[in-house]
């Protein structure tokens, strides 16, 4: 298991795995159908491998990977909870998976109905009026939401509003999305409590009078803290003519407990791959539906699912719509999983999810706060942030702690984020972990803290048991090797042994 060659280094000329249908139509030479200069001279140099080679290769690769099914994954901000197997099966049903997006509505009543109902559920959970399911992920939701705000301002004759306020603890996608939507960003400071510094907000609003387009924030924020001033903040931003954008990445803390709409937000995105437990898939796909308040409905991208009696249909976007955010109706099979998840949990279940997520986070925080610095010492919501400052002084950084955790078969927390906490360790256990797992994590983290005091080199040299050790990131970036190339002549590589 300690190395696995590339698929290109396997097999040899003439090997193949998949078979194609029997060709049962006439087969004239291709260049009688297509001009030769548009044709490929040589087949693309894809691997030449048999089926057993494909299966073993990717099975081996999977064995070199860690997932939620493998172990605890307290990755702050990412909500790595259990991905129900039922949801996978539902998304694989031929009536969902083998459906072409251009099929007539009469042939896709079940699909449109599912989307129509899901829209309603998400609206209710967020306290918004309507929801577009088009965005493919959280960041895509952000830019969608910002464009809706932009369209709204333009429609109000306030197209000059060009400033988006973003707290210093925000996720990187927030400022990146704002730029992409054509905005200038201004950073808001956090106060000593870890919330938005309202005095600073006041100053910024004054400094940019008439230019404020929006405030983007998460609540609970990236410190896992609920900003108790939210109503006041909303009032002030609205008074300055700005809209409030809710980054829903932390919605796992609030289902059935509080709603962005009730806090005063105008736009909300969901990360269904977090809150509704659709799998992260090693980086995607996700889904980032965006809900809006009444006044923003006309600007939503289209089409939206509609219903009349028992008939479901697609309703084209109106004249004020920002237009499309992508082809087709969204990451449908992800939405199927989210729908299944919501129907399984129901209203009480979803509240229990959030409440339990909050409990689990507080439980760990409380148990470890004597060993790790807690920059903001308050009850947290579904996650919290330690600083490894103390350990850093002892000779082991947040990175070293993360790497040491790997030796215990656990995924590390998110590190060095949010940027406002030095040596940040951002811990989100989620609600699907057992008390035993949390206790085990606590015990390991205590042991690591002890190791940091007594033999920090153990941490600096970690991980010790993984298939590879720490990798040279500098080399990777300085001399980028981003694709395989045959070492010499292609013929030579064919003989490389498995």
């Amino acid at each position, binding site marked *: 298991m300690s190395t696995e060659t*590339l698929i290109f280094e396997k097999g040899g000329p003439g090997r193949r795995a*998949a078979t194609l249908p029997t060709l049962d139509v006439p087969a004239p030479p291709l260049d009688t*159908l297509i001009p030769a200069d548009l044709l490929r001279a040589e087949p693309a140099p894809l691997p030449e491998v048999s089926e057993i080679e494909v299966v073993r290769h990717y099975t081996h690769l999977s064995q070199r990977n860690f997932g939620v099914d493998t172990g605890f994954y307290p990755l702050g901000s990412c909500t790595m909870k259990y991905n129900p197997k039922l949801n996978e099966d539902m998304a694989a049903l031929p009536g969902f998976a083998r*459906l*072409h997006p251009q099929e007539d509505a009469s042939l896709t009543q079940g699909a449109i109905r599912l989307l129509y109902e899901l829209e309603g559920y998400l609206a209710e959970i967020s306290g918004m009026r309507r929801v577009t399911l088009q965005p*493919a992920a959280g960041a895509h939701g952000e830019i969608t939401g910002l464009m809706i705000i932009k369209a709204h301002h333009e429609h109000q004759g306030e197209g000059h509003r060009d400033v988006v306020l973003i707290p210093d603890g925000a996720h990187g996608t927030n400022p990146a999305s704002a730029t992409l939507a054509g905005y200038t960003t201004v950073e808001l400071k956090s106060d000593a409590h870890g919330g938005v510094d309202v005095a600073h907000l006041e100053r910024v609003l004054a400094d940019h009078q008439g230019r404020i387009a929006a405030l983007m924030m998460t609540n609970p924020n990236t410190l896992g803290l609920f900003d108790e001033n939210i109503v006041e903040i909303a009032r002030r931003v609205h008074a300055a003519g700005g809209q409030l954008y809710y980054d829903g990445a932390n919605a796992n803390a609030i289902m059935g407990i509080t709603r962005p709409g009730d806090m005063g937000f105008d736009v909300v995105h969901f990360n269904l791959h977090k809150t509704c437990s659709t799998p992260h898939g090693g980086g995607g796909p996700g889904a980032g539906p965006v809900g809006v308040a009444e006044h923003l409905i006309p600007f939503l991208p289209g089409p939206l699912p509609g219903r009349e009696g028992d008939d479901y249909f697609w309703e084209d976007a109106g004249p004020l719509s920002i237009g499309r955010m992508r082809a087709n109706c969204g990451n449908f099979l*992800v939405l199927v999983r989210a729908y299944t998840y919501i129907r399984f949990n129901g209203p009480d279940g979803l509240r229990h999810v959030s409440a*339990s997520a909050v409990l689990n986070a507080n439980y760990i925080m409380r148990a470890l706060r004597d060993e790790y610095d807690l920059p903001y010492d308050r009850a947290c919501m579904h996650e919290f942030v330690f600083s490894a400052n103390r350990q850093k002084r002892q000779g082991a950084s947040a990175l070293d702690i993360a790497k040491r955790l790997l030796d215990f078969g656990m995924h590390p927390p998110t590190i060095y984020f949010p940027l406002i906490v030095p040596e940040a360790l951002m811990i989100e256990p989620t609600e699907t972990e057992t008390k035993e797992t949390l206790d085990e994590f606590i015990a390991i983290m205590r042991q690591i803290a002890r190791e940091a005091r007594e033999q920090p080199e153990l941490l600096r040299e970690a991980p010790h048991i993984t298939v590879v050790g720490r990798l040279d990131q500098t080399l990777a970036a300085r001399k980028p090797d981003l694709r395989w190339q045959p070492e010499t002549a292609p013929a030579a590589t064919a003989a490389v042994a498995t």
Partner: protein
Amino acid sequence: MSYVPNTAAEQHEMLRAVGVDTIEQLLAPVPEPVRLRRPLDLPAALPEPDLKRLMLGLSEQNADLDHYVSFLGAGSYDHYIPSVVPHLVKRSEFYTSYTPYQPEISQGMLQAIYEFQTMACQLTGLDVTNASLYDGSTAVVEAALLAVGPAGTGDVLVSRALDPQYRATLRTYAWARGFTVRELDLEDGATSLAALEAALSSETRAVIIQHPNFFGTLEDVRAVERLVRRTNAVYVVAITEPASLGVLAPPGAYGADIVAAEGQSLGSPLGYGGPALGIFASRAAFMRRLPGRIAGKTVDERGQTGYVLTLQTREQHIRRERATSNICTNQALLALATTIYLAALGKQGFRELGEQCLLRAHYAQERIRAVDGFRPLFGRPFYDEFAVATPLPVAQLNAALRERGIIGGYDLSHDYPELGDAALFCVTETRTREDIDTLAAALEEIAGGIS
């Protein structure tokens, strides 16, 4: 119901350890005015068996392509997915993992991405590529954004034969970002070279064509390149049907700077249009301006080969408002599926796939053109889609086909009213001769019935 494992008794014990009596107390930071003091208004929870029954029922209200013979393409393609692909993609170590930020325990996914990047380069003939974008349409957007650069201004010329949904998406982003999109007219189902020549200027930042284009027609990609090269514009080739790359020249061979493609066609289910897979490949010169994640090869402290996410200083989590793109979550699992799909088909199989689609589509066009009243709209070479003028409105035609279990071609009249009654038929390797003959017979019958 929920997937929370801990029982009430266990939660109680935990609460005691935290030093409170109830979870309510932990929720105290949420001020009363914004507390939701009623249950969410959602349907009651359903246990798994009841829910499965409900979902099966919903799914069966849809016409799946196992049970309907479909001739729809128009950006989404029904190719056969070998059984090995889902079996391997569904290994839980892959699908339940997060972005491989911890390389030591993510070598599987990282190596697979590196292989994906290699294959994307092999297919397109370009130098570098990333770990995926959302879909083909947003890949085109990212290409335009790269071309207009941080200033975010200038002209982007777009063929009207680019997928209408892609054009719509591009318009949305252009409006927000502040650049101009100019559409290029068509001639015999392909981008008018005259229109392109006329539109090119020093303001032109990018020229975007689709190949095969939305009509399945092959563009004069080399002539376009010659014109683009008169300016500093970036030559972007969009591909919605990458199965074509089994037989068509790689864009790198005819001078494309960027390929922005939809990868669904290569091993991912149709899924009513999503999740899809944005493929983005470019010349080496753009390497440090690419959107999205990139895996690279390196070594560990013991000298072993390993893979990491690299060139991260382009990305939002490092560069924030100055990032090349805002993308974070991408479509990694579909990139994995595509990698496995392409490995399974391999050099020979992928070429044959390209041939089969081409040959079957041409057979179908022959059969349809032989039906009274149906006439190919364009005279140019095509790949696996072709536009046909129909003797009755396509909506009416398709309704009649549906009754026969056939899903007809895409109705072009909404996006291209100037074409009159016209349908776009797609024929991949999954359509047998019998399917095609059945379609032709049905068209004959339906058209005969009205004349």
